[in-house]
């Protein structure tokens, strides 16, 4: 029992380290003063300003749009890659391919961003597409790096899943395409959903790669926030951050609750 106070201290310190920055943003979003260093009383004025700020609204919409489109494509491509890696018969160089798919995960973002920029410039010069840089190039760039995450999730899920389900379907007369549509994909749905959510978050967050491949006028939310902060922290950014935190927290709580409810339902059914 002597150890307990020490452990509690460590725990408190750890959580404080994680959450104090977040809470300070939340606190200052309700600060009536324009100065970060001065507490001028409680106010909702920054929220009001935020809603009146056209640029922020546009940046938010653009970010959501890019995140949704790139997550969808990344899920499609990543699922294909994951399926191929998990289910193709052993071939020479398979390990190399497996390692190559995870390389983008550990590649420094600066390098990914730079190489994509070089590629887009060359493509524009020789193929004429994509013309200029903007939302399209950001979307393509986000698909490129987030599909690797989806592929890894899908591959892990398939590796954990017994292949005999697919063999059983085949044995019952299902052709390869039917096996994929009837058995493999339905069982893969949770992994694909998780992959989509991760890809969405990665895209929504991304600043480094986006700033390499963006063009005039295409400001995603992170790019906008970063450019504003460079000019000095505007308190309405705090309000924006608080709202994003609230939405994320709500989402996490909701998904955790959904999972628990489903588990409980399954438990009840098994007990009849």
């Amino acid at each position, binding site marked *: 029992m002597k150890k307990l106070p020490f452990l509690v201290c460590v725990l408190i310190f750890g959580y404080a380290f994680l959450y104090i920055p977040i809470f300070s943003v939340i606190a200052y979003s309700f600060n009536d003063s324009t100065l970060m260093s001065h507490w001028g009383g409680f106010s909702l004025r920054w929220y009001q300003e935020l809603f009146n700020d056209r640029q922020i609204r546009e940046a938010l919409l653009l970010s959501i749009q890019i995140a949704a489109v790139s997550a969808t494509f990344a899920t499609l491509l990543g699922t294909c890659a994951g399926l191929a890696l998990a289910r193709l018969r052993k071939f020479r160089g398979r390990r190399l391919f497996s390692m190559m798919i995870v390389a983008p995960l550990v590649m420094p973002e600066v390098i990914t961003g730079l190489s994509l920029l070089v590629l887009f410039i060359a493509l524009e010069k020789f193929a004429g597409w994509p013309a200029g840089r903007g939302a399209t190039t950001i979307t393509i760039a986000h698909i490129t790096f987030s599909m690797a995450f989806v592929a890894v999730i899908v591959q892990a899920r398939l590796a954990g899943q*017994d292949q*005999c*389900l697919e*063999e*059983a*379907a*085949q*044995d*019952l*007369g*299902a*052709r*390869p395409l*039917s096996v994929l549509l*009837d*058995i493999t994909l*339905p*069982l893969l749905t949770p992994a694909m959903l998780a992959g989509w959510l991760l890809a969405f978050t990665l895209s929504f967050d991304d600043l480094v790669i986006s700033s390499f491949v963006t063009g005039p006028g295409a400001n995603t939310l992170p790019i906008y926030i970063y450019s504003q902060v460079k000019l000095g922290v505007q308190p309405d950014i705090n309000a924006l951050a608080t709202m994003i935190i609230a939405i994320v927290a709500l989402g996490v709580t909701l998904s955790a609750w959904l999972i628990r409810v489903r588990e409980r339902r*399954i438990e009840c*059914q*098994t007990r*009849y």
Partner: protein
Amino acid sequence: MKPFIQFDDVSKHFGDFAAVDRVSLDIEEGEFFSILGGSGCGKTTLLRILAGFEELSSGRMLIDGEDMSGIPAHRRPVNMMFQSYALFPHMNVAKNIAYGLKQDGLEPADIDARVTRILDLVQMSEFAQRKPRQLSGGQQQRVALARALVKQPKVLLLDEPLAALDKKLRQNTQFELANIQQKTGITFVLVTHDQEEAMMLSSRIAVMNRGQFSQVGTPSEIYENPQNRFTADFIGSINLFEGNVAALAETMMTVSVPAIDECLTAPAIPDVNIGDPVCLAIRPEKIWISRQAPDTEGNTILTGEVVDQGYFGNLSVYRVRLPSGDMVQVSTQNRVRSTERAIQREDEVFIHWECTSAVVLKE
């Protein structure tokens, strides 16, 4: 009559390892055939070759006279019941069973009728709407069986179908399996490591060892007339005495066993010469054990000391040490109801058997 399933010099290599090594086998239509062996002996590979999940490295495999090479699993007239049952977790029982019929493009009404009938056969009608995870192991096993049977395949393959059930349920299910096989007349090919299961269910058994058949025959042939040491040792328990052929007569032969300094007599086997190294085998239940000297003529009689005894309720098993130090296992039926054992540990005993009970093995 032409055999229904034919393995013709079939091999399957994984890299340098021969999982199945030049196997030939004929299975007749309507047989309940078992492939019996320890883990890694190649029995499951053989079953997967039948199902179409493994391609042959060499040789030919025919079902109903048709060469199966190049025919993918989904076009073969066989269905398989998987060891893990492989029920589709996102479909209910009825949909699981109907899946194979749907692939054949049957009318919905026809599918329903056949699903209802097969559910009735495996006594699972009331569970049609349940998901697999809501069923017990035994129920899942029935659904898996129904799903494989409903397509009325020419051959049903069973991969350790009862391994996951507890002993009591397993015994009941064994009777049911035998029943269903007789009712449907489908050729069953069963893979198992459980010799009792194979003995009870099968019309014939192939004992497999290191990718090859050690012996193929009816359960009683394999038990009473093992042709080699592996089969003798793998099926049931057996006592083996190493020795050389000492004398050969028309019906009987004598084997000198240097270890126990005795000459033992057994029925003669063909193609041996005096002096050949052989092995004399005798099953524990064919040996009598007593504290008094038996007054039988012509039996093989040995003496020894009981070093161990095991009580199994219906039988007792004794381990007897011969003066040479060799151990002999003897088992007796406990016909008399008594908690007092007549023979105790450290008793000096006589063991004896009829000479015709012993078998001489060449390899």
